[in-house]
């Protein structure tokens, strides 16, 4: 078992890392062997030089080159000075025991190896996550399937996708039906059925049947290319924390070097001239060397970007694409969420939401209405037919008469059916019962008597209520809905979902004005997110602190304008995005606090003489290892 693990670890290493591992092991063996060699004094020291040079030659070389190039204060310099200093102290003490000098470099190399291994691993992990790039497209030529590169396929070509293959380009299914797995794109593990006439997006995996697809976009414009370039660009937008760390590292290393120098020189001089005591040079030089070892900035410099990288990578596995670490940082501070209504909290399609005052069964009423409307292709008719659900038998319907602006009269199963608005009812001399619900009201009368009305409205998504609750428990203070729809429908949605504010009948420019008002009202540190489906709300997406586009597969404008793109149209993903961002920022702050905290404590202990070289090595390498492991946690996103 352990052997298998060690083999997998070895396989995951590149040549450079293997070489470094070999040097570390050999040095460790030599050091152990030296403990049993009875040499003392200069002889022992000469023996220690062998493992030292073996493990430190590259560091010494880099330090010299750094000084020559005017880049004095880097970690190579720190390590070179610390280890050489430890050697010289051993000479000065005439002990010849140079174990600490070699150990400092040995563990430093262990840390470096670990760092590069961990970074390489998470790099590979994330590229596996984003393994949606199609390698080829099948095209039929002369009755045979030919594989060509996806970017050579022209718009309007017909490609063939076999079971198990990735759909390489966006298009419309011409022929065939199949189940599609879009888990790599949206995080949604439930396969989706597609048949002829439906649009499909690239990056999905075709699971069961052969599909013939007519492409509607070139490869560069296809969803999969858009997503890949978005993720690749992501970490070039650096967050404030990263900028802080980079700046900090630039100031910090020289600062520590000068403090070490001061620690080596000043106390002995003070001892001698102010207090009249012995100078104790070697004590203070030893403490100064500890300073140099402790202060190595690696842990900080690597763990913060690694946390962001892992966080963004993990989120993209869940179908949440964050365009940069700066947006992740802002997302974590979101206290105000502004929703667009249509397509975000609601489906944006009309459907029968209710049946009121019906004198016969709900199903029967819907059946009559659907049959009467069977000849019409109006969206309302279509939603009635959908609500009815069964196949429509047109032979039951006769004498269809469409009265424009009013509705439809028809004979169904021998009964005279009137389906339409209040005006139609009035015209027939039937008193209709008015409805208080927002939406479109369809009254139905059968054989001259009122039979009830059907409410057709934009339907709230089932996950919307959960999304609102989850956002509140994630600490979001205010939820606002903006919509271009009428106030009655808007109020109803807002009440059902218990939103804090609702503004209706807005033009796109009014939405911008509303968001600007909210931005002006809130404190600076509390951020505002706008969630929209990307249709007509690009200006608002840009104006908000974070613009979140939802269900953006296919909508180019949204992918361009938004800072966070949700591949799914499930509003709960908004809450998940906020939670993931909070968690990732938590890890970033933990790492900063941990690295700085332990280092400052050890520096203080070192200055007063409590710490020894082993503690210093822990403060350097141990903290690095802990910080890197902590950073990698950000990749695990399933249960957040």
């Amino acid at each position: 078992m352990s052997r298998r693990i060690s083999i997998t670890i070895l396989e995951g290493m590149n040549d450079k890392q293997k070489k470094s591992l070999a040097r570390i092991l050999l040095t460790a063996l030599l050091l152990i062997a030296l403990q049993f060699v009875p040499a003392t004094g200069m002889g022992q020291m000469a023996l220690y030089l062998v493992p030292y040079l073996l493990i430190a030659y590259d560091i010494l070389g880099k330090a010299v080159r750094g000084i020559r190039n005017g880049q004095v204060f880097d970690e190579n310099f720190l390590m070179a000075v610390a280890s050489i200093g430890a050697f010289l102290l051993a000479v000065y003490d005439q002990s010849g025991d140079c174990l600490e000098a070699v150990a400092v470099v040995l563990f430093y190399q262990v840390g470096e190896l670990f760092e590069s291994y961990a970074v390489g691993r998470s790099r590979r992990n994330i590229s596996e996550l984003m393994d949606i790039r199609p390698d080829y497209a099948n095209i039929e030529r002369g009755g045979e399937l030919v594989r060509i590169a996806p970017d050579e396929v022209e718009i309007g070509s017909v490609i063939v996708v076999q079971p198990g293959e990735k759909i390489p380009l966006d298009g419309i299914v011409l022929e065939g039906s199949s189940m599609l797995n879009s888990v790599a794109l949206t995080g949604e593990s439930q396969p989706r059925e597609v048949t002829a006439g439906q649009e499909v997006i690239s990056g999905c995996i075709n699971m069961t049947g052969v599909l013939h697809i007519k492409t509607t976009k070139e490869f560069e414009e296809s969803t999969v290319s858009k997503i890949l370039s978005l993720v690749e660009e992501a970490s070039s937008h650096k967050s404030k924390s990263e900028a802080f760390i980079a700046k900090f590292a630039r100031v910090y290393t020289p600062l520590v070097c000068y403090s070490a120098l001061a620690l080596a020189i000043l106390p002995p001089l003070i001892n001698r001239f102010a207090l009249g005591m012995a100078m104790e040079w070697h004590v203070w030089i030893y403490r100064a060397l500890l300073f140099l070892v402790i202060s190595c900035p690696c842990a900080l410099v690597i763990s913060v970007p690694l946390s962001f990288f892992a966080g963004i990578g993990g989120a993209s596995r869940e179908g949440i694409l964050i365009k940069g670490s700066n947006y992740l940082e802002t997302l974590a501070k979101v206290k105000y969420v502004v929703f667009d209504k249509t397509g975000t909290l609601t489906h944006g399609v009309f459907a029968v939401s209710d049946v009121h005052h019906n004198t016969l069964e709900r199903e029967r009423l819907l059946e009559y209405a659907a049959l009467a409307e069977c000849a019409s292709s109006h969206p309302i008719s279509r939603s009635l037919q959908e609500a009815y659900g069964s196949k429509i038998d047109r032979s039951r319907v006769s004498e269809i008469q469409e009265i424009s602006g009013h509705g439809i009269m028809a004979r169904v199963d021998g009964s005279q059916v009137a389906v339409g608005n209040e005006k139609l009812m009035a015209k027939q001399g039937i008193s209709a019962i008015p409805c208080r619900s927002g939406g479109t009201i369809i009254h139905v009368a059968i054989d001259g008597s009122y039979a009830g009305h059907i409410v057709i409205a934009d339907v709230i998504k089932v996950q919307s209520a959960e999304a609102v609750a989850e956002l509140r428990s994630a600490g979001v203070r205010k939820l606002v809905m903006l919509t271009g729809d009428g106030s009655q429908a808007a109020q109803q949605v807002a009440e059902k979902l218990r939103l804090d504010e609702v503004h209706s009948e807005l033009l796109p420019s009014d939405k911008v004005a509303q968001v600007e008002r909210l931005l002006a009202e809130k404190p600076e540190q509390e951020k505002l997110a706008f969630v929209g489906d990307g249709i007509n709300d690009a200006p608002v997406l840009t104006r908000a602190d974070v613009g979140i586009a939802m269900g953006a597969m296919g909508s180019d404008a949204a992918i361009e304008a938004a800072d966070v793109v949700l591949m799914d149209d499930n509003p709960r993903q908004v809450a998940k995005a906020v939670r993931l961002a909070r968690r990732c920022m938590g890890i970033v702050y933990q790492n900063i606090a941990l690295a700085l905290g332990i280092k400052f404590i050890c520096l203080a202990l070192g200055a007063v003489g409590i710490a020894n070289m082993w503690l210093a090595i822990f403060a350097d390498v141990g903290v690095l290892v802990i910080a890197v492991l902590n950073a990698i946690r950000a990749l695990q996103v399933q249960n957040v």
Partner: protein
Amino acid sequence: MKKTYKIEVDCANCANLMEQAAKNTAGVADAVVNFMTLKMKVEFAEGTEPQLVMAEVLKACRKVEPECEIYY
């Protein structure tokens, strides 16, 4: 003009130093080094020849990190 190059570098701090060095090279308007994806994004100043500028960028980066590589 903006271009992205693949790079090879070992440590995060070295990547920061490379970014700094690239930014200070003549002909470079702005540069971002992404250690995690090993990419360098360079925005060139008006009227410069990217190939020539990149040779200088590599030289400057080698000074701060001798073992780095830029594939341009």
